[in-house]
């Protein structure tokens, strides 16, 4: 009998189940610099990693309670982010490895760990530094501007010079002005810049007793436009001329808005059309219709893809930054002038950085390099500086 049993073991492929070693050094920690809801896990491979075919991550609320399977990996994996945690709830984790024959080895249970939101994202420190430096430049220039705005030179911007003339033209023709703020929202910088141009246009319209029609895409922008125009009419001493129904909502659909504004242009036949703000595919439709009714058109947007259409179809076009410079150019108030001057200084700093670092890189390419590392001091500096800019 013993002989038969031994013969069976020697003759068959039977191999007894070997114990499997679990993964080691399981580290579980809250994800840094996030808004909460995530915990990171990492572990070292099992000493028997060659045999492992499945990795399972399990989570439980108690160390001796039930553990739920979070994820299963069929390839060697040594880290996992659990993005399904509830903040400030204590969790326990373990990782299981399984071999082909179903032998399971569980790691030690690690916990309790909690996820929580963080007030500061230290990874974005460079953004904070740049923003603070920019803010400081702007504040300093605002202080300078408050002392004497006449020393603050701004170069001529043709499109903005034409605003008063364009309003006057509509007045002479006895036609209204149509002002479109585009299809941006109040959180778009172009829409904010457009509102400051609207202030000037509305003031002139009130002075010349010309009607101003403003069809809107977004109800909140419409409210801001109504406030801007009302304020301008009150400031000019003509609140009686302000008509709230002329600053109206059309629709929140892009081409619906284009069709609506086109219709208004055809029926009202404005003498002057302002297209200032965020415009997309509807830009050429609006500009062409304005041209077809014989209106003088002054356009401006920060959307680079739409500017070519404005150039082709409008009388004057404000290109991106010129739109943002409009409020400082038109009003010359210290805050706006300071912002513009701060922005100009930032541009010069950017130009200097681009030129300096590129020169570092060029010298690094020309100078002889270390044979082993294929680098030299200049090329190392070039890589370091470039990485710094891209890190955040």
């Amino acid at each position: 009998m013993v002989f038969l049993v031994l013969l069976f073991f020697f003759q068959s492929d039977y191999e007894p189940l070997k114990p499997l070693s679990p993964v080691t050094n399981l580290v579980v920690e809250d994800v840094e610099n996030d808004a909460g809801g995530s915990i990171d896990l990492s572990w070292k491979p099992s000493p028997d990693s060659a045999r492992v075919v499945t990795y399972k991550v399990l989570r439980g609320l108690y160390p001796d309670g039930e553990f739920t399977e979070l994820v299963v990996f069929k390839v060697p994996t040594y880290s996992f982010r659990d993005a399904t945690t509830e903040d400030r709830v204590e969790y326990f984790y373990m990782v299981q490895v399984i071999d082909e024959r179903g032998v399971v080895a569980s790691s030690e249970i690690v916990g309790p760990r909690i996820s929580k939101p963080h007030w500061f994202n230290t990874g974005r420190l460079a953004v904070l530094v740049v923003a603070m430096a920019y803010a400081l430049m702007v504040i300093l220039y605002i202080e300078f501007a408050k002392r004497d705005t006449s020393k603050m030179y701004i170069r001529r911007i043709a499109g903005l010079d034409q605003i008063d003339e364009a309003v006057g033209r509509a007045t002479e023709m006895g036609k209204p002005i149509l002002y479109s703020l585009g299809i941006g929202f109040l959180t778009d910088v172009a829409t904010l810049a457009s509102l400051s141009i609207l202030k000037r246009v509305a003031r002139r319209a009130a002075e010349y007793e010309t009607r101003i029609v403003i069809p809107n895409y977004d109800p909140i922008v419409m409210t801001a436009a109504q406030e801007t125009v009302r304020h301008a009419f009150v400031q000019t001493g003509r609140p009686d001329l302000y008509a709230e129904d002329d600053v109206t909502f059309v629709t929140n659909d892009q081409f619906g808005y284009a069709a609506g504004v086109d219709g208004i242009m055809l029926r009202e036949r404005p003498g002057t059309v302002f297209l200032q703000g965020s415009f997309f595919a509807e830009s050429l439709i609006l500009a062409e219709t304005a041209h077809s009714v014989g209106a003088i058109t002054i356009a401006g947007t920060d959307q680079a893809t739409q500017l070519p259409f404005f150039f082709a179809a409008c009388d004057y076009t404000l290109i991106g930054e010129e739109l943002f410079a409009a409020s400082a150019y038109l009003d010359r108030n210290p805050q706006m002038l300071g912002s513009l001057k701060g922005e100009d200084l930032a541009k010069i700093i950017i130009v200097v950085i681009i030129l300096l670092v590129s020169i570092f890189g060029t010298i690094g390419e020309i100078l002889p390099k270390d044979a082993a590392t294929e680098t030299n001091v200049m090329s190392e500096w070039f890589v370091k500086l470039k990485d710094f800019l891209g890190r955040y």
Partner: protein
Amino acid sequence: MSFANLLGLWVAATLTIAILSFLYRDNPLYKFAEHVYVGVSAAYFIIYSAKFTMELQLINEFKSNLEAYLQQGSTSGLVEALLLIIPTILGILMLTRWVGPKIGWISRWPIAFTIGLGAGLGITGGIQGVLLPQVQATIEPLWVSPFSGANLWAAVGSLLMILGVVSTLIYFYFSRPHRGFIGVVSRIGIIFIMVSFGAAFGATVMARVSLLIGRLYFLVNEWIGGTIDFIQAL
């Protein structure tokens, strides 16, 4: 094809032709299509706002978070529920302008909040998402060793990119008159701007032509073809 499908095709085709009739001149057919389009899209926006913004993101979200707090004691649920009260109040404040001039000024608060939020997000988003990556992408060595044809073209590409970016930035520099050296550089900048606009113009026109082809394809194949198929099937 069912009669209902055919009817839908005819409505879509008639409205398409009505909108395209604007190419000739303003006419009653265009006016009708325009008003239908504006009316339907405005109505859709209102329904969308009521259903997906107010009901799903505000009322249902508030209810589920509050239930999570009351039934499971989830403090994050309570915080989420309380946070939803802030936009609700801001939204209600926006409506005060229609109540009367005495309290209408309160509607400026949510507007100020929205503008402040936009500016704040714009500055950090602009620095992190646009400014720093663009500066990094512009910086390249003006010479690549060892000397070869491919490296020479890479160097020319880098030179053009740096020249383009720097001269365009100088064009948008407002603090000095564009005369002398600054004038020359800014003139180079406007050339780069116009070349990029030309390329963008061509690309966008091609995209618009493909949209037109899509619409003409609908008229010929689906509308006329579908109608013929329907008649033949009778």
